[in-house]
């Protein structure tokens, strides 16, 4: 009865990376490689291509996932989370090991996979449903429900290229939310889209897991949603399993490991996070007179993002999450938060943009900056965990009580100074 839903034994995935900046092989490689191999074979030895390097994205993974578990997969960028999901969803083949499923599997690695901009919403529901593995009759049966969930009835016959990005994501989620697999694999997709719709989707996922005993594997960088949604956690690091078990314990361990970043992070051109449109080159935090990433709460904190734009993505949006050391997101700031005429322009080229966190806002503690670059509500360009951190020491009050030695930290996440005034007794509020 209670056989595990997924049994993973000795799972490993090795990638071959091409050097010399050549991501795509050329025809010449084929020809020269064939000759070199043939020559080597004649000489009776195996030939190593010096320009290719092997690299294990996932190694020696043994894991059992129980039926009905909702498992949060956490780990730093490049830890192998997406690789694990790709292996589980059969998109790519494992190099070693085996996986055994008990139940129908569906995966959602991206919202709106296969959506075609020229087709109408209605047509895309059918197409996307088929791509996610629903039969034609199944889609027809759930069609009205999907449309109702997506809240886009009026635009059903409009080509999706005319949709706002929010509508696009809604429709895509609505289709995915109506999948009825026994095992659902989800990669970070919930992080796009507006907050109320996200809540709706998370609610739907939780219902599915609670009431119908489905198993969900959920990759996320948001520790709060892992802690609230998942009962189990899996922590990957450098392609290996570090820890698994109770979701709270696993995320706590992950967060403890995370606190080893400095106040500056610079990427080399090869591994700068991003896509062909835009790459992040560096992130720095500083204060007017800070040292080693320690800033006084009485001074502003400057967060600088250096990035390069090759061609400007649609609805470009640069921002970051400010996270406490126990994983709570204090705030998210985007360069598009002010009124539109005041937005910084993201032309092609290299830019450094500064976000200034005002003085007198943050409480004492360690804060992490998690950069997020995206095409607004459509897709991620870079979605990073903590890359830099800074420590705030409390020192921003004008009152003598603020600076007393025992008040190292106040209760609460932030510590702004609010105005206080007395209301005369005879006036109504």
């Amino acid at each position: 009865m209670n056989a595990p839903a997924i049994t993973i034994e000795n799972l490993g995935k090795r990638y071959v990376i091409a050097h010399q900046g050549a991501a795509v092989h050329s025809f010449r490689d084929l020809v020269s490689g064939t000759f070199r191999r043939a020559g080597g074979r004649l000489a009776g030895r195996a030939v190593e291509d010096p320009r290719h390097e092997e690299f294990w994205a996932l190694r020696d993974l043994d894991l059992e996932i129980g039926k009905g578990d909702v498992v949060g997969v956490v780990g730093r960028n490049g830890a192998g989370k997406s690789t694990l999901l790709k292996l589980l969803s059969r998109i790519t083949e494992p190099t070693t090991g085996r996986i055994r499923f008990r139940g129908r599997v569906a995966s959602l690695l991206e919202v709106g996979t296969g959506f075609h901009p020229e087709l109408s919403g209605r047509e895309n529901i059918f197409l996307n449903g088929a791509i996610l593995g629903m039969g034609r009759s199944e889609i027809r049966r759930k069609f009205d429900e999907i449309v109702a969930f997506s809240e886009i009835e009026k635009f059903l016959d409009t080509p999706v290229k005319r949709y706002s990005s929010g509508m696009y994501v809604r429709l895509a989620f609505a289709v995915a939310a109506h999948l009825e697999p026994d095992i659902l694999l989800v990669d970070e997709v919930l992080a796009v889209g507006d907050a109320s719709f996200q809540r709706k989707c998370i609610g739907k996922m939780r219902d599915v897991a609670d009431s119908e005993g489905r198993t969900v594997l959920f990759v996320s960088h948001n520790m709060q949603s892992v802690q609230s949604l998942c009962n189990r956690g899996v922590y990957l690091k450098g392609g290996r399993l570090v820890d698994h078990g109770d979701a709270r314990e696993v995320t706590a361990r992950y967060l403890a490991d995370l606190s080893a970043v400095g106040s500056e992070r610079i990427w080399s051109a090869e591994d700068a996070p991003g896509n062909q449109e835009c790459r992040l080159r560096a992130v720095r935090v500083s204060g007017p007179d800070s040292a080693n990433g320690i800033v006084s709460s009485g001074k502003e904190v400057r967060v600088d993002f250096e990035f390069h734009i090759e061609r400007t993505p649609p609805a470009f949006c640069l921002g970051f999450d400010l996270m406490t050391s126990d994983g709570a997101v204090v705030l998210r700031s985007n360069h598009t938060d002010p009124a539109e005429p005041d937005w910084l322009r993201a032309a092609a080229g290299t830019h450094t943009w500064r976000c200034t966190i005002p003085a007198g806002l943050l409480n004492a503690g360690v804060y992490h900056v998690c950069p997020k670059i995206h095409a607004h509500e459509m897709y991620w360009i870079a979605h990073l965990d903590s890359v830099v951190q800074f420590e705030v020491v409390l020192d921003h009050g004008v009152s003598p009580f603020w600076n007393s030695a025992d008040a190292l930290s106040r209760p609460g996440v932030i510590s702004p100074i609010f105005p206080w005034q007395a209301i005369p007794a005879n006036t109504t509020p």
Partner: protein
Amino acid sequence: MSTQQPPELIIEAGRGEARYWQDLWAFRGLFYFLAWRDILVRYKQTVIGVSWALIRPLITTVVFTVVFGKLARLPSSGDSPYAITVLAALLPWMFFSQALSDCSNSLVGNANLVSKIYFPRLIVPASSVIVSLVDFLIVAVILAVMMVSYQYLPDWRVLCLPFFLVVAFVTALAAGLWFAALNVRYRDFRHIVPFVVQIGLYLSPVGFTSSVVPEQWRFLYSLNPMVGVIDGFRWSLLRGNATIQWDAFAIGILLVVLLLSTGLRYFRKVERTFADVI
């Protein structure tokens, strides 16, 4: 809810084989949907889509008729009008060249699908060939109209047409599978395919008839299976006014079968790494 045993699935390193053909059948719905999507998208902007499918063969027919028939004074097939001789050959050729280039680009063009979901990858090139059948039907209608207006109607031989169409279909698929798979890893093939199609047009008897090929070269020339297909189309549509070099055509068909089986094997071999390199 149900007490029935949940389906079991085992993935093991180096053993994707066993369920492949079973999966291909299970994913046939996706095959229809992809073909349906490509057709919809192609003719969505009806005015441009359909009229382009009409204009291209018409203009090509006019140009070929003038250049080869009027200026070079090449003979047409028996008593048939030169324009009809040309269009009867353009019909399979346009189908073949479009199917081949669509098929070759299909995997790269659907890279987002390949890297985000699982399905037997063979579905993508196979469904892309189906789309060319719609254009084929459009050209066929033009030809029918032209034949009626010239009062030159085919006889019983037209019933053999499907056979030649199947050969063209399989030839496009066989070469297309190779190119599609190679294209994923070696993007240079993107430039090679249009070139192959271009050269193929000159090497195949589209603007002229294969009777102008000198007798001693005829056998070698007819090893190209598309020569047999085009001659076959003329033979079926123009009341037998064309000769098919049957011995060479048979060898050509064998070559196609060989190309298809090696193409399938190669495709299956590299398919498992598509998502990693695309």
